[in-house]
């Protein structure tokens, strides 16, 4: 699956996008947990108040995801 990161999360992790293999029956929270295993900086970046989107629509942690999805993690928005 494609995973994207924005703003503080992108800067902290130094990563704007990655391909990730996820198990069957994964959820957004599962993906986030998996990413946080990658190291301290990932844990820090993703443990704060983080929003998520599945296929460019806001979703919550319990949303189911599959291999073809585009998942994104980002901080609360501050446009306008």
């Amino acid at each position, binding site marked *: 699956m494609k995973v994207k990161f924005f*703003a503080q999360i992108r800067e902290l992790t130094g990563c704007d996008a990655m391909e990730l293999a996820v198990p069957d029956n994964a959820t957004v929270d599962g993906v986030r947990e998996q990413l946080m295993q990658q190291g301290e900086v990932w844990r820090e970046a993703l443990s704060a108040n983080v929003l998520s989107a599945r296929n460019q629509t806001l979703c919550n942690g319990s949303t189911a995801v599959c291999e073809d999805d585009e998942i994104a993690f980002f901080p*609360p928005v501050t446009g*306008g």
Partner: protein
Amino acid sequence: MFARVAQEDFSQQALYDELCAHDQRSRAGAIVTFTGRVRDYNHAGAIDGIELEYYPGMTEQALAQLIDKAVKRFSLTNAGIVHRVGRLANHEQIVWVGTCAAHRQDAFLAASFLMDMLKQSVPIWKKEWVGEQAHWVAAKGSDDDAAMRWLTEDKDS
């Protein structure tokens, strides 16, 4: 209806004309516009412009959905929104919202609604520059409260 993300600056007259030209019934009695510009200060002092990051694809889609929602909710005859991204100097234009309705209350409420919801649900993130340093702006509780006003009304109805 239009919803755009743009790097370049926008013209008040061009957007106003676009809004009115596509007004469904050409009979809107009321047109409201809102323009947001870069302030040259924040709570801590002077700043040197901002930088806006967005999520290509999702941002445009979120803006379009917001416009759609406002048109239905407030019986608008047209509405549009343009949000700039990238590096912007102090006083530059950031965002423009326009609404057309038969009556003024709908046009005013819809423009307020668009700005409140934009600040809560559209993936755009703001950095403020001070000299060579840039800091991400934290989301404001008052913006959540403003959006909550509309969401609470949704639940009630």
